């Protein structure tokens, strides 16, 4: 029956007091109802009426209501001490914030009022503000509210819209310009890389240039060249305005090439081919790189040959103006043409002498051989560089001279030697045919290596470096004598020991003779042929005749004075005569002029009788 209400139990007041002071009443109302701003007399009347109605209701409802109210109240109450503290803290915070707001508003108003009513204002202004801001500094005016100026507003709106549009347009323009530029750049880059890739795919090495960033270059030099040439072997690739790639200035222009000329005296008998250069406008980038490389290679070749020629003056290498000229000295080789190497600039070359000449093939071959020899020298340099170096010692190593000129010269010497020997044999064969002596002749020729058996270019070029060797053979077949032959063997080498061609003459029945001069060989050959013929005659002539091989003389002892006691043979190659003579008679045959009709054998039969 006892109902719990939230009434505070206080003792009855003993003395009736006046109405509680307003402050207490206000405090009580605040506590009970929150803020008292919403309390009006009318609302209180309504409440009383409602409460009374509530009190007249039935007891169960009252119980229920009270229970529910109590339940709600019980829920609203914090259950733990912590929650109580938290709630209190929160409330204090809110209260504090509210207090701050109010105080600031108070300050503001006070400051505002301090101009017009300093007294009360100063009372309410807070000391902090008073220190910071002197009083009376904030003024206040009452303004009439301005009428709405719609025209002006519309104009303002229009202005604002226009400005906005303008700026948007500007940004659109700049974006478009950026896009254009980007497209342009992309196009240029594509073109650039397309061209660079084109060069690179052709096999040229595209690399960075050591000094400059962001620039590519092409190397077309050779890594084994002398330093002054390998430094020139790199050209920067410049970008044009439309992305096209051009070679740096100075490369590919003024190309040079080496020309080999063979001369007899003043007259040119053979000339090697010069590469043709089309006009500047038509050359593609790749072609210009190729010209640059060829020109650099030929320049290096000329340079190395010049260096070599300085050491080879003893063999007949001279510099005539700008050309290296090799003329073998007369006693070493007869009739050899003079070989001239020149470095010509292709621009200035007047393309004369286009008609083919007799020794063009030889000149061309020499030019190609010179280039191959330079490449071989590069290879040798690389091999030597990769070998384990000897321990450092005091000996200084200078740059070795590359052997380019020497193999070529030995070739020329050998060729001319061969030519002379063959000419000599030719004369002899003519003579012998005129004299009716049967013979066969093998002329000397170059023995070429078997191309199928070569493993690499190196072995091909190694063939150049060896000594040149060839053989010539003249066989005289006589009726009454075993065929005897005369062999001459030629060796040409340019090593320091023996420079030039060495001839070895072997004739049947006697030992080898070595000669270094061609004339000696010729004389010895003629002597050998004569003695051979004499020996054949001796056996042909029958008994009693003795042969003195060395002097090609046949002697016979005889009593009577009128018979022939000696018969001898003379052979003269330079005049081309063969003569069989005795004390009384002489028969001669000649290769060029007139000769006897009968053969040697018949003539001899007459003489020995």
């Amino acid at each position, binding site marked *: 029956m006892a109902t719990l209400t939230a009434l505070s139990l206080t003792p009855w007041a003993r003395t009736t007091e006046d109405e509680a002071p307003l402050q207490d009443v206000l405090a009580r109302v605040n506590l009970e109802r929150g803020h008292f701003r919403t309390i009006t007399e009318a609302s209180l009347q309504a409440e009383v009426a409602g409460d009374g109605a509530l009190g007249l209701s039935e007891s169960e409802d009252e119980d229920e209501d009270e229970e529910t109210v109590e339940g709600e109240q019980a829920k609203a109450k914090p259950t733990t001490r912590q929650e109580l503290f938290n709630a209190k803290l929160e409330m204090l915070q809110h209260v504090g914030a509210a207090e701050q707001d109010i105080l600031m508003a108070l300050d503001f108003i006070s400051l505002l009022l301090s101009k017009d009513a300093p007294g009360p204002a100063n009372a309410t202004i807070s000391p902090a503000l008073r220190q910071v801001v002197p009083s009376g500094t904030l003024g206040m005016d009452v303004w009439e509210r301005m009428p709405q100026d719609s025209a002006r507003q519309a104009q303002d709106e229009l202005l604002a819209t226009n400005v906005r549009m303008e700026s948007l347009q500007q940004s659109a323009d700049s974006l478009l310009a950026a896009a254009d530029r980007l497209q342009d750049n992309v196009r240029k880059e594509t073109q650039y890389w397309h061209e660079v890739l084109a060069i690179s795919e052709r096999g040229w090495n595209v690399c960075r240039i050591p000094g400059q960033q962001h620039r590519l270059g092409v190397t077309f030099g050779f890594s084994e060249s002398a330093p002054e040439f390998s430094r020139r072997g790199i050209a920067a690739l410049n970008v044009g305005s439309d992305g096209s790639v051009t070679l740096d200035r100075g490369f590919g222009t003024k190309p040079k090439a080496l020309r080999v000329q063979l001369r007899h005296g003043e007259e040119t008998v053979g000339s090697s081919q010069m590469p043709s250069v089309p006009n500047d406008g038509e050359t593609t980038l790749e072609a210009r790189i190729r010209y640059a490389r060829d020109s650099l290679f030929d320049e290096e070749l000329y340079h190395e040959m010049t260096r070599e020629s300085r050491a080879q003056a003893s063999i007949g290498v001279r510099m005539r103006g700008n050309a290296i000229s090799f003329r073998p000295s007369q006693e070493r080789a007869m009739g050899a043409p003079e070989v001239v190497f020149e470095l010509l600039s292709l621009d200035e070359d007047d393309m004369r002498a286009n008609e083919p000449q007799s020794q063009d093939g030889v000149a061309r071959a020499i030019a190609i051989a010179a280039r191959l020899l330079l490449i071989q020298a590069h290879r040798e340099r690389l091999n030597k560089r990769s070998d*384990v170096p000897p*321990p*450092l010692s005091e000996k200084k190593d200078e740059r070795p001279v590359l052997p380019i000129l020497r193999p070529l010269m030995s070739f020329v010497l050998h060729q001319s030697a061969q030519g002379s020997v063959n000419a000599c044999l030719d004369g002899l064969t003519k003579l012998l045919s005129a004299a009716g002596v049967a013979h066969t002749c093998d002329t000397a020729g170059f023995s070429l290596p078997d191309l199928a058996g070569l493993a690499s270019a190196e072995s091909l070029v190694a063939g150049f470096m060896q000594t040149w060797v060839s053989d010539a053979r003249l066989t005289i077949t006589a009726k009454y004598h075993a065929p005897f032959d005369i062999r001459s063997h030629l060796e040409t080498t340019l090593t320091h020991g023996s420079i030039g061609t060495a001839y070895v003459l072997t004739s049947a029945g006697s030992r080898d003779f070595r000669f270094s001069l061609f004339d000696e060989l010729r004389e010895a050959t003629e002597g050998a042929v004569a003695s051979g013929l004499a020996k054949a005659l001796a056996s042909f002539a029958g008994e009693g005749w003795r042969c003195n091989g060395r002097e090609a003389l046949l002697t016979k002892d005889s009593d009577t004075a009128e018979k022939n006691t000696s018969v001898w043979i003379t052979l003269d190659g330079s005049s081309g005569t063969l003569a069989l003579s005795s004390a009384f008679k002489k028969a001669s045959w000649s290769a060029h002029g007139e000769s006897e009709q009968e053969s040697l054998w018949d003539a001899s039969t007459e003489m020995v009788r």
Partner: protein
Amino acid sequence: MHEFLLYSQIPVTRHEQVLHILAGVCAAQPISVCEQHLIYQQLKVADAAGSKKGAPAKHQSAQAQRQSYHKLVREVSAGDGEQGAWRFRAEDVPQPGVQAVISRPVEERLLDQAELEKFREGGSWYRYINQFITSTQRFVHNNVIVRVSRILSVPEGTGALEPLDAPPLVLADCRPVDPSGSYLFEAYVRVEDGTNSKLTEQAMSELMALKSQLEGAVDLRVPDRLSLDTRVKGV
């Protein structure tokens, strides 16, 4: 002869890259060399045994008094087992004063048959210890020789036969001594005469120039000097 050396180690994953870098620096391709090293212990020091008549004491390096380990090296071609001639190699302890590189006197010469006999089994001069194979890629840059090598150990039982006459080893059977397979990088310069200061200066400067050129790609360092000691301990 005097040698100046610097070492580094290359893991397997970087082997190809380092070979490419070296090929670019030296402007040449590597040469593959396979060598067989036999290690012998000196039983008698040659000079002490040879001086009988009290010949005037020649100036010898202090090491000649103590026994050392010497090596016999020869090139073996990896493919067909073709063998080169034996070379004798005696390395001394590296000199203590030099910090920047390893500097040591080395003697290397080709052996003829008579001297080879000293190394046979049962002789009183040398005792066989062990052998190993190195498979090397060699580069040459001016005067500096660079070797990237891997040391392989020989299969079991090879030492039982007389190593000088043993049949050529099958390379497939030899396994690397270091199971991770990393490579040893050596850069060295040789000088004919170790006392000539001009030459040694030149050699050192070349070696240091190579070191600074390869900096960042391969870091060359100086190992502990005493780890290259070839003297026999405990005798």
